Protein backbone atom coordinates (compact mmCIF):
# COMPACT_ATOMS: atom_id res chain seq x y z
CA UNK A 1 0.00 0.00 0.00
CA UNK A 2 1.13 3.52 -0.77
CA UNK A 3 2.30 5.50 2.22
CA UNK A 4 0.39 8.61 1.12
CA UNK A 5 -2.90 6.73 1.41
CA UNK A 6 -1.90 5.56 4.86
CA UNK A 7 -0.99 9.12 5.87
CA UNK A 8 -4.34 10.39 4.62
CA UNK A 9 -6.10 7.64 6.59
CA UNK A 10 -4.13 8.58 9.72
CA UNK A 11 -5.02 12.25 9.35
CA UNK A 12 -8.70 11.38 8.78
CA UNK A 13 -8.59 9.21 11.89
CA UNK A 14 -7.33 12.23 13.86
CA UNK A 15 -10.11 14.39 12.41
CA UNK A 16 -12.70 11.76 13.42
CA UNK A 17 -11.37 11.85 17.00
CA UNK A 18 -11.42 15.66 17.02
CA UNK A 19 -15.03 15.70 15.78
CA UNK A 20 -15.99 13.22 18.48
CA UNK A 21 -14.32 15.45 21.05
CA UNK A 22 -16.23 18.50 19.94
CA UNK A 23 -19.42 16.62 20.87
CA UNK A 24 -18.01 16.04 24.34
CA UNK A 25 -16.61 19.53 24.85
CA UNK A 26 -19.54 21.65 23.69
CA UNK A 27 -22.94 22.35 25.14
CA UNK A 28 -25.27 23.15 22.27
CA UNK A 29 -27.30 20.72 20.15
CA UNK A 30 -26.47 22.57 16.91
CA UNK A 31 -22.74 22.25 17.67
CA UNK A 32 -23.14 18.50 18.18
CA UNK A 33 -25.05 18.13 14.93
CA UNK A 34 -22.36 20.06 13.05
CA UNK A 35 -19.66 17.88 14.60
CA UNK A 36 -21.63 14.77 13.64
CA UNK A 37 -22.04 16.07 10.10
CA UNK A 38 -18.30 16.74 9.71
CA UNK A 39 -17.52 13.37 11.21
CA UNK A 40 -19.81 11.65 8.74
CA UNK A 41 -18.27 13.45 5.77
CA UNK A 42 -14.79 12.34 6.86
CA UNK A 43 -16.15 8.83 7.50
CA UNK A 44 -17.49 8.69 3.95
CA UNK A 45 -14.06 9.75 2.69
CA UNK A 46 -12.36 7.04 4.77
CA UNK A 47 -14.83 4.46 3.45
CA UNK A 48 -14.14 5.50 -0.13
CA UNK A 49 -10.37 5.22 0.44
CA UNK A 50 -10.85 1.72 1.90
CA UNK A 51 -12.90 0.88 -1.19
CA UNK A 52 -10.10 2.16 -3.40
CA UNK A 53 -7.47 0.15 -1.51
CA UNK A 54 -9.42 -3.11 -1.49
CA UNK A 55 -10.99 -2.63 -4.91
CA UNK A 56 -14.47 -3.73 -3.83
CA UNK A 57 -17.00 -1.56 -5.67
CA UNK A 58 -19.80 -2.11 -3.11
CA UNK A 59 -17.86 -0.04 -0.58
CA UNK A 60 -18.23 3.01 -2.82
CA UNK A 61 -22.02 2.63 -2.57
CA UNK A 62 -21.71 2.38 1.22
CA UNK A 63 -19.62 5.59 1.16
CA UNK A 64 -22.20 7.39 -0.94
CA UNK A 65 -24.99 6.20 1.37
CA UNK A 66 -22.98 7.43 4.39
CA UNK A 67 -22.56 10.81 2.76
CA UNK A 68 -26.25 11.15 1.88
CA UNK A 69 -27.93 9.59 4.92
CA UNK A 70 -25.59 10.61 7.73
CA UNK A 71 -24.34 14.00 6.66
CA UNK A 72 -27.50 15.33 4.99
CA UNK A 73 -30.71 13.51 5.90
CA UNK A 74 -30.22 12.77 9.61
CA UNK A 75 -29.06 16.31 10.56
CA UNK A 76 -31.91 17.75 8.44
CA UNK A 77 -34.49 15.53 10.16
CA UNK A 78 -33.19 16.35 13.62
CA UNK A 79 -33.06 20.10 12.93
CA UNK A 80 -36.58 19.96 11.50
CA UNK A 81 -37.97 18.09 14.49
CA UNK A 82 -36.29 20.30 17.07
CA UNK A 83 -37.01 23.65 15.41
CA UNK A 84 -39.96 24.39 17.69
CA UNK A 85 -38.27 23.33 20.93
CA UNK A 86 -37.25 25.94 23.45
CA UNK A 87 -33.55 26.80 23.44
CA UNK A 88 -33.05 25.46 26.96
CA UNK A 89 -34.08 21.98 25.81
CA UNK A 90 -31.29 22.01 23.27
CA UNK A 91 -28.49 22.81 25.72
CA UNK A 92 -26.98 20.32 28.10
CA UNK A 93 -26.67 22.39 31.24
CA UNK A 94 -26.34 19.78 33.91
CA UNK A 95 -24.53 16.57 32.94
CA UNK A 96 -23.68 14.06 35.65
CA UNK A 97 -19.93 14.63 35.20
CA UNK A 98 -18.81 18.19 34.48
CA UNK A 99 -17.67 19.27 31.06
CA UNK A 100 -13.96 19.59 31.80
CA UNK A 101 -13.81 16.25 33.63
CA UNK A 102 -15.61 14.54 30.78
CA UNK A 103 -13.10 15.96 28.28
CA UNK A 104 -10.24 14.48 30.30
CA UNK A 105 -12.13 11.19 30.71
CA UNK A 106 -12.66 11.02 26.96
CA UNK A 107 -8.93 11.53 26.38
CA UNK A 108 -8.31 8.62 28.75
CA UNK A 109 -10.88 6.57 26.82
CA UNK A 110 -8.96 7.25 23.61
CA UNK A 111 -5.84 6.01 25.38
CA UNK A 112 -7.75 2.93 26.56
CA UNK A 113 -8.93 2.09 23.07
CA UNK A 114 -5.39 2.39 21.68
CA UNK A 115 -4.18 0.18 24.52
CA UNK A 116 -6.89 -2.43 23.89
CA UNK A 117 -6.27 -2.63 20.16
CA UNK A 118 -2.59 -3.17 20.87
CA UNK A 119 -3.60 -6.43 22.55
CA UNK A 120 -5.30 -7.74 19.41
CA UNK A 121 -2.75 -9.10 16.92
CA UNK A 122 -3.56 -7.44 13.59
CA UNK A 123 -0.06 -6.34 12.76
CA UNK A 124 -0.29 -7.42 9.13
CA UNK A 125 -2.85 -4.86 7.98
CA UNK A 126 -1.83 -1.18 8.35
CA UNK A 127 -5.41 0.04 7.75
CA UNK A 128 -6.62 -1.95 10.74
CA UNK A 129 -3.73 -0.68 12.86
CA UNK A 130 -4.58 2.93 12.07
CA UNK A 131 -8.37 2.93 12.15
CA UNK A 132 -9.44 0.21 14.59
CA UNK A 133 -8.47 2.24 17.70
CA UNK A 134 -10.27 5.26 16.23
CA UNK A 135 -13.48 3.27 15.81
CA UNK A 136 -13.21 1.90 19.34
CA UNK A 137 -12.56 5.40 20.69
CA UNK A 138 -15.69 6.63 18.93
CA UNK A 139 -17.63 3.73 20.41
CA UNK A 140 -16.39 4.40 23.96
CA UNK A 141 -16.89 8.17 23.80
CA UNK A 142 -20.39 7.71 22.36
CA UNK A 143 -21.20 5.34 25.20
CA UNK A 144 -19.80 7.84 27.70
CA UNK A 145 -21.91 10.66 26.22
CA UNK A 146 -24.95 8.40 26.39
CA UNK A 147 -24.41 7.57 30.04
CA UNK A 148 -23.22 10.97 31.20
CA UNK A 149 -25.88 13.28 29.83
CA UNK A 150 -29.41 13.95 30.96
CA UNK A 151 -31.30 15.26 27.96
CA UNK A 152 -32.72 13.08 25.22
CA UNK A 153 -31.16 15.09 22.41
CA UNK A 154 -27.62 14.50 23.62
CA UNK A 155 -28.40 10.82 24.08
CA UNK A 156 -29.56 10.65 20.46
CA UNK A 157 -26.25 12.21 19.41
CA UNK A 158 -24.35 9.71 21.58
CA UNK A 159 -26.19 6.87 19.87
CA UNK A 160 -25.30 8.28 16.45
CA UNK A 161 -21.62 8.46 17.40
CA UNK A 162 -21.69 4.84 18.60
CA UNK A 163 -23.24 3.87 15.28
CA UNK A 164 -20.49 5.72 13.39
CA UNK A 165 -17.90 3.86 15.43
CA UNK A 166 -19.53 0.51 14.69
CA UNK A 167 -19.74 1.32 10.99
CA UNK A 168 -16.03 2.15 10.91
CA UNK A 169 -15.32 -1.02 12.92
CA UNK A 170 -17.05 -3.33 10.45
CA UNK A 171 -15.64 -1.44 7.49
CA UNK A 172 -12.07 -1.74 8.74
CA UNK A 173 -12.21 -5.34 9.92
CA UNK A 174 -14.36 -7.01 7.28
CA UNK A 175 -14.15 -4.47 4.43
CA UNK A 176 -17.88 -4.03 4.61
CA UNK A 177 -20.59 -6.61 5.07
CA UNK A 178 -22.63 -7.39 1.97
CA UNK A 179 -24.48 -4.50 0.41
CA UNK A 180 -27.99 -5.64 1.30
CA UNK A 181 -27.15 -5.68 5.03
CA UNK A 182 -25.46 -2.28 4.69
CA UNK A 183 -28.59 -0.78 3.14
CA UNK A 184 -30.67 -2.46 5.84
CA UNK A 185 -28.55 -0.84 8.55
CA UNK A 186 -28.91 2.59 6.96
CA UNK A 187 -32.69 2.23 6.78
CA UNK A 188 -32.61 1.09 10.41
CA UNK A 189 -30.78 4.22 11.54
CA UNK A 190 -33.15 6.43 9.59
CA UNK A 191 -36.23 4.77 11.08
CA UNK A 192 -34.60 4.88 14.52
CA UNK A 193 -34.00 8.60 14.20
CA UNK A 194 -37.57 9.23 13.03
CA UNK A 195 -39.03 7.18 15.90
CA UNK A 196 -36.79 8.78 18.50
CA UNK A 197 -37.62 12.24 17.19
CA UNK A 198 -41.36 11.51 17.48
CA UNK A 199 -40.66 10.25 20.98
CA UNK A 200 -38.72 13.29 22.06
CA UNK A 201 -41.36 15.55 20.56
CA UNK A 202 -44.05 13.87 22.64
CA UNK A 203 -41.80 13.92 25.67
CA UNK A 204 -41.23 17.63 25.34
CA UNK A 205 -44.98 18.12 25.19
CA UNK A 206 -45.84 15.91 28.15
CA UNK A 207 -43.12 16.89 30.61
CA UNK A 208 -42.09 20.35 29.35
CA UNK A 209 -38.51 19.16 29.49
CA UNK A 210 -36.27 16.61 27.80
CA UNK A 211 -34.62 15.38 30.97
CA UNK A 212 -34.54 11.58 30.96
CA UNK A 213 -34.89 11.37 34.73
CA UNK A 214 -38.53 12.32 34.19
CA UNK A 215 -39.35 9.08 32.42
CA UNK A 216 -37.80 7.03 35.17
CA UNK A 217 -40.75 7.79 37.43
CA UNK A 218 -43.50 5.21 37.08
CA UNK A 219 -46.30 7.23 38.56
CA UNK A 220 -47.32 10.67 37.53
CA UNK A 221 -47.34 12.63 40.79
Amino acid at each position, binding site marked *: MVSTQLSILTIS*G*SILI*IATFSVVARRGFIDWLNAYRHQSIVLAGVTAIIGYITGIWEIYIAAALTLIVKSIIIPKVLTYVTRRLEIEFKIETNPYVSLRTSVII*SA*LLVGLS*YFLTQQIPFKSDPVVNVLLPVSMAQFFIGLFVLVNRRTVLSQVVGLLIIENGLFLFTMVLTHGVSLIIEVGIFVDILIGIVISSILLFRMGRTFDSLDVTNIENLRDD
Partner: protein
Amino acid sequence: MYSMVEILVGIIQGLVIILLSPLITGIMRKTKARTQKRMGASVLQPYYDILKLIKKDEVISDQSSWIFRICPWVNFVALATAAFFIPLFLMYSPFGLAGDLLLVIGLFALARFFTMLASLDVASSFGGLGSSREMMYSALLEPALFLTIFIVALTYGGTNLSTLVTAVSGATLLPHPQLIFAAIAMFVLVLGETGRLPFDNPSTHLELTMVHEAMILEYSGKSLALIEWSQAIKLLILLVLVVNIFVPWGISSSITIPALGIGFVSLFAKISILAIFIAYFESSIAKWRLFRIPDLVAVAIASSMIGIILYYIK
Protein backbone atom coordinates in the same frame (compact mmCIF):
# COMPACT_ATOMS: atom_id res chain seq x y z
CA MET B 1 31.38 27.36 15.92
CA TYR B 2 29.43 29.94 14.05
CA SER B 3 31.02 32.47 11.74
CA MET B 4 30.76 36.24 12.20
CA VAL B 5 28.11 36.48 9.45
CA GLU B 6 25.92 33.92 11.16
CA ILE B 7 26.18 35.74 14.48
CA LEU B 8 25.33 38.98 12.70
CA VAL B 9 22.25 37.37 11.11
CA GLY B 10 21.30 36.01 14.55
CA ILE B 11 21.48 39.50 16.06
CA ILE B 12 19.39 40.83 13.17
CA GLN B 13 16.79 38.10 13.81
CA GLY B 14 16.44 39.11 17.46
CA LEU B 15 16.24 42.80 16.58
CA VAL B 16 13.63 42.12 13.88
CA ILE B 17 11.41 40.37 16.45
CA ILE B 18 11.79 43.29 18.86
CA LEU B 19 11.18 45.97 16.25
CA LEU B 20 8.45 44.19 14.31
CA SER B 21 6.30 43.21 17.28
CA PRO B 22 4.26 46.45 17.61
CA LEU B 23 3.37 46.14 13.92
CA ILE B 24 1.79 42.69 14.47
CA THR B 25 -0.20 44.09 17.41
CA GLY B 26 -1.30 46.92 15.13
CA ILE B 27 -2.39 44.47 12.41
CA MET B 28 -4.47 42.54 14.94
CA ARG B 29 -6.11 45.72 16.27
CA LYS B 30 -6.86 46.90 12.74
CA THR B 31 -8.43 43.55 11.83
CA LYS B 32 -10.57 43.57 14.94
CA ALA B 33 -11.71 47.11 14.19
CA ARG B 34 -12.61 46.20 10.60
CA THR B 35 -14.62 43.15 11.69
CA GLN B 36 -16.58 45.45 13.99
CA LYS B 37 -17.26 47.83 11.05
CA ARG B 38 -14.95 50.50 12.45
CA MET B 39 -12.15 52.13 10.51
CA GLY B 40 -9.64 51.55 13.29
CA ALA B 41 -6.32 53.25 13.88
CA SER B 42 -3.42 52.80 11.49
CA VAL B 43 -1.38 49.61 11.83
CA LEU B 44 1.53 51.79 12.96
CA GLN B 45 -0.45 53.13 15.92
CA PRO B 46 1.35 50.95 18.54
CA TYR B 47 4.66 52.57 17.50
CA TYR B 48 3.15 56.05 17.94
CA ASP B 49 1.76 54.99 21.33
CA ILE B 50 5.15 53.75 22.49
CA LEU B 51 6.94 56.91 21.23
CA LYS B 52 4.37 59.13 22.93
CA LEU B 53 4.55 57.22 26.20
CA ILE B 54 8.35 57.39 26.25
CA LYS B 55 8.22 61.20 26.08
CA LYS B 56 5.77 61.47 28.96
CA ASP B 57 6.51 61.89 32.63
CA GLU B 58 6.01 59.04 35.00
CA VAL B 59 3.90 58.91 38.16
CA ILE B 60 5.07 56.43 40.79
CA SER B 61 3.22 55.86 44.01
CA ASP B 62 5.33 56.71 47.09
CA GLN B 63 3.98 53.54 48.70
CA SER B 64 5.71 51.37 46.12
CA SER B 65 9.08 49.70 46.49
CA TRP B 66 11.93 48.94 44.07
CA ILE B 67 10.02 45.94 42.69
CA PHE B 68 7.49 48.25 41.10
CA ARG B 69 10.24 50.25 39.40
CA ILE B 70 12.30 47.36 38.04
CA CYS B 71 9.33 45.27 36.82
CA PRO B 72 9.08 46.92 33.36
CA TRP B 73 12.81 46.47 32.83
CA VAL B 74 12.75 42.84 33.92
CA ASN B 75 9.82 42.27 31.59
CA PHE B 76 11.49 43.88 28.63
CA VAL B 77 14.91 42.33 29.18
CA ALA B 78 13.49 38.83 29.72
CA LEU B 79 11.37 38.92 26.58
CA ALA B 80 14.05 40.61 24.47
CA THR B 81 16.51 37.90 25.57
CA ALA B 82 13.98 35.24 24.63
CA ALA B 83 13.68 36.85 21.19
CA PHE B 84 17.32 36.06 20.42
CA PHE B 85 16.80 32.30 20.83
CA ILE B 86 14.03 32.10 18.25
CA PRO B 87 14.89 31.01 14.69
CA LEU B 88 13.03 33.56 12.62
CA PHE B 89 13.78 33.42 8.89
CA LEU B 90 17.02 31.46 9.23
CA MET B 91 16.60 27.83 10.23
CA TYR B 92 18.79 28.15 13.29
CA SER B 93 19.73 30.82 15.72
CA PRO B 94 23.45 31.07 16.56
CA PHE B 95 22.49 31.78 20.16
CA GLY B 96 20.52 28.53 20.27
CA LEU B 97 23.38 26.78 22.06
CA ALA B 98 22.75 28.95 25.10
CA GLY B 99 19.06 28.28 25.44
CA ASP B 100 16.23 26.07 24.25
CA LEU B 101 12.45 26.13 24.24
CA LEU B 102 12.27 25.49 27.97
CA LEU B 103 14.44 28.54 28.67
CA VAL B 104 12.10 30.67 26.53
CA ILE B 105 9.14 29.42 28.59
CA GLY B 106 11.15 30.13 31.75
CA LEU B 107 11.83 33.70 30.64
CA PHE B 108 8.10 34.15 29.97
CA ALA B 109 7.43 32.88 33.49
CA LEU B 110 10.02 35.27 34.94
CA ALA B 111 8.38 38.26 33.26
CA ARG B 112 4.96 37.11 34.38
CA PHE B 113 6.14 36.56 37.94
CA PHE B 114 7.56 40.08 38.19
CA THR B 115 4.38 41.58 36.75
CA MET B 116 2.37 39.78 39.41
CA LEU B 117 4.74 40.90 42.17
CA ALA B 118 4.64 44.51 41.01
CA SER B 119 0.87 44.54 40.89
CA LEU B 120 0.76 43.27 44.47
CA ASP B 121 3.44 45.75 45.49
CA VAL B 122 1.34 48.89 45.12
CA ALA B 123 -1.43 47.24 47.16
CA SER B 124 -4.32 48.49 45.06
CA SER B 125 -7.33 46.20 45.05
CA PHE B 126 -7.24 45.92 41.27
CA GLY B 127 -3.65 44.73 41.33
CA GLY B 128 -4.43 41.94 43.77
CA LEU B 129 -7.43 40.87 41.73
CA GLY B 130 -5.47 40.85 38.48
CA SER B 131 -2.51 38.97 39.90
CA SER B 132 -4.67 36.29 41.52
CA ARG B 133 -6.43 35.69 38.20
CA GLU B 134 -3.14 35.68 36.33
CA MET B 135 -1.74 33.18 38.80
CA MET B 136 -4.73 30.90 38.25
CA TYR B 137 -4.29 31.09 34.49
CA SER B 138 -0.58 30.38 34.60
CA ALA B 139 -1.09 27.43 36.93
CA LEU B 140 -3.70 26.03 34.54
CA LEU B 141 -1.78 26.68 31.34
CA GLU B 142 1.59 25.35 32.46
CA PRO B 143 0.81 21.57 32.32
CA ALA B 144 -0.84 21.88 28.93
CA LEU B 145 2.10 23.91 27.64
CA PHE B 146 4.62 21.34 28.79
CA LEU B 147 2.64 18.41 27.40
CA THR B 148 2.51 20.19 24.04
CA ILE B 149 6.23 20.89 24.12
CA PHE B 150 6.86 17.24 24.96
CA ILE B 151 4.92 16.12 21.87
CA VAL B 152 6.98 18.38 19.62
CA ALA B 153 10.25 17.53 21.37
CA LEU B 154 9.59 13.77 21.24
CA THR B 155 8.62 13.88 17.58
CA TYR B 156 11.63 15.86 16.43
CA GLY B 157 14.16 14.88 19.07
CA GLY B 158 15.11 17.61 21.50
CA THR B 159 13.91 20.92 22.83
CA ASN B 160 16.65 22.97 21.20
CA LEU B 161 14.82 25.35 18.91
CA SER B 162 17.42 25.28 16.16
CA THR B 163 17.48 21.47 15.80
CA LEU B 164 13.70 21.46 16.17
CA VAL B 165 13.04 23.87 13.33
CA THR B 166 15.71 22.23 11.15
CA ALA B 167 14.07 18.82 11.67
CA VAL B 168 10.57 20.19 11.02
CA SER B 169 11.50 21.89 7.77
CA GLY B 170 12.98 18.64 6.48
CA ALA B 171 9.85 16.59 7.24
CA THR B 172 6.28 16.67 6.02
CA LEU B 173 3.44 16.96 8.47
CA LEU B 174 1.50 13.95 7.17
CA PRO B 175 3.19 11.05 8.98
CA HIS B 176 2.84 12.78 12.36
CA PRO B 177 -0.85 12.96 13.31
CA GLN B 178 0.11 13.86 16.89
CA LEU B 179 1.21 17.27 15.63
CA ILE B 180 -2.38 18.12 14.66
CA PHE B 181 -3.38 17.65 18.29
CA ALA B 182 -0.32 19.57 19.43
CA ALA B 183 -1.30 22.43 17.10
CA ILE B 184 -4.83 22.57 18.52
CA ALA B 185 -3.46 22.67 22.07
CA MET B 186 -0.85 25.25 21.07
CA PHE B 187 -3.51 27.54 19.60
CA VAL B 188 -5.46 27.55 22.87
CA LEU B 189 -2.21 28.13 24.74
CA VAL B 190 -1.22 31.10 22.58
CA LEU B 191 -4.61 32.66 23.30
CA GLY B 192 -4.11 32.06 27.02
CA GLU B 193 -0.47 33.09 27.29
CA THR B 194 -0.97 36.38 25.48
CA GLY B 195 -4.29 37.12 27.16
CA ARG B 196 -6.45 37.11 24.03
CA LEU B 197 -10.18 36.96 24.11
CA PRO B 198 -11.77 33.98 25.76
CA PHE B 199 -9.18 34.35 28.54
CA ASP B 200 -8.74 38.08 28.87
CA ASN B 201 -9.88 41.08 26.91
CA PRO B 202 -6.80 43.14 26.02
CA SER B 203 -8.75 46.23 24.98
CA THR B 204 -11.01 47.07 27.93
CA HIS B 205 -10.63 48.57 31.35
CA LEU B 206 -13.77 46.98 32.76
CA GLU B 207 -13.13 45.69 36.24
CA LEU B 208 -14.89 42.38 35.66
CA THR B 209 -13.02 41.38 32.56
CA MET B 210 -9.47 42.53 32.93
CA VAL B 211 -6.57 40.37 33.97
CA HIS B 212 -3.39 41.75 32.50
CA GLU B 213 -4.70 45.30 32.33
CA ALA B 214 -5.57 45.16 36.03
CA MET B 215 -1.98 44.29 36.87
CA ILE B 216 -0.42 47.15 34.93
CA LEU B 217 -3.03 49.74 35.89
CA GLU B 218 -0.61 51.76 38.02
CA TYR B 219 2.02 52.19 35.33
CA SER B 220 2.51 55.29 33.24
CA GLY B 221 5.05 56.88 30.95
CA LYS B 222 8.20 54.96 30.05
CA SER B 223 7.31 51.99 32.23
CA LEU B 224 3.96 51.53 30.52
CA ALA B 225 5.66 51.79 27.11
CA LEU B 226 8.13 49.08 28.09
CA ILE B 227 5.39 46.79 29.38
CA GLU B 228 3.22 47.24 26.29
CA TRP B 229 6.23 46.64 24.08
CA SER B 230 7.29 43.49 25.92
CA GLN B 231 3.72 42.21 25.70
CA ALA B 232 3.86 42.73 21.93
CA ILE B 233 7.22 40.90 21.79
CA LYS B 234 5.71 37.97 23.70
CA LEU B 235 2.81 37.75 21.25
CA LEU B 236 5.17 37.80 18.26
CA ILE B 237 7.48 35.18 19.79
CA LEU B 238 4.57 32.81 20.36
CA LEU B 239 3.24 33.36 16.84
CA VAL B 240 6.72 32.73 15.39
CA LEU B 241 6.99 29.54 17.44
CA VAL B 242 3.63 28.28 16.15
CA VAL B 243 4.51 29.13 12.55
CA ASN B 244 8.05 27.74 12.64
CA ILE B 245 7.17 24.55 14.47
CA PHE B 246 4.00 23.60 12.62
CA VAL B 247 4.28 25.21 9.15
CA PRO B 248 7.97 26.02 8.62
CA TRP B 249 7.97 25.85 4.80
CA GLY B 250 9.90 28.59 3.06
CA ILE B 251 12.33 29.14 5.92
CA SER B 252 15.89 29.73 4.76
CA SER B 253 18.54 27.09 5.40
CA SER B 254 21.57 29.03 4.15
CA ILE B 255 22.90 32.52 4.49
CA THR B 256 22.39 33.97 1.04
CA ILE B 257 20.51 37.16 0.42
CA PRO B 258 17.73 35.65 -1.80
CA ALA B 259 17.10 32.72 0.58
CA LEU B 260 16.94 35.02 3.59
CA GLY B 261 14.62 37.36 1.65
CA ILE B 262 12.25 34.52 0.73
CA GLY B 263 12.40 33.28 4.32
CA PHE B 264 11.52 36.70 5.69
CA VAL B 265 8.69 37.35 3.22
CA SER B 266 7.09 33.93 3.74
CA LEU B 267 7.44 34.22 7.51
CA PHE B 268 5.88 37.67 7.53
CA ALA B 269 3.00 36.46 5.34
CA LYS B 270 2.36 33.41 7.54
CA ILE B 271 2.51 35.45 10.75
CA SER B 272 0.16 38.09 9.36
CA ILE B 273 -2.31 35.39 8.27
CA LEU B 274 -2.15 33.78 11.72
CA ALA B 275 -2.56 37.17 13.46
CA ILE B 276 -5.54 38.08 11.26
CA PHE B 277 -7.07 34.65 11.93
CA ILE B 278 -6.67 35.10 15.69
CA ALA B 279 -8.23 38.56 15.45
CA TYR B 280 -11.22 37.12 13.52
CA PHE B 281 -11.52 34.34 16.05
CA GLU B 282 -11.52 36.91 18.84
CA SER B 283 -14.26 38.90 17.13
CA SER B 284 -16.47 35.83 16.85
CA ILE B 285 -16.48 34.93 20.54
CA ALA B 286 -17.13 36.71 23.83
CA LYS B 287 -15.04 36.78 26.97
CA TRP B 288 -15.77 33.65 28.97
CA ARG B 289 -16.67 33.56 32.59
CA LEU B 290 -13.55 33.10 34.73
CA PHE B 291 -14.61 29.67 35.95
CA ARG B 292 -15.42 28.39 32.47
CA ILE B 293 -11.79 28.95 31.42
CA PRO B 294 -10.72 25.55 32.89
CA ASP B 295 -13.06 23.92 30.33
CA LEU B 296 -11.01 25.38 27.51
CA VAL B 297 -7.72 24.48 29.16
CA ALA B 298 -9.07 20.94 29.68
CA VAL B 299 -9.55 20.73 25.92
CA ALA B 300 -5.91 21.75 25.42
CA ILE B 301 -4.71 19.21 27.99
CA ALA B 302 -6.87 16.42 26.53
CA SER B 303 -5.67 17.23 23.03
CA SER B 304 -2.02 17.10 24.02
CA MET B 305 -2.64 13.88 25.96
CA ILE B 306 -4.03 12.25 22.81
CA GLY B 307 -1.03 13.57 20.93
CA ILE B 308 1.34 11.83 23.34
CA ILE B 309 -0.71 8.60 23.16
CA LEU B 310 -0.52 8.72 19.35
CA TYR B 311 3.24 9.27 19.51
CA TYR B 312 3.87 6.28 21.75
CA ILE B 313 1.47 3.83 20.16
CA LYS B 314 1.91 4.43 16.46
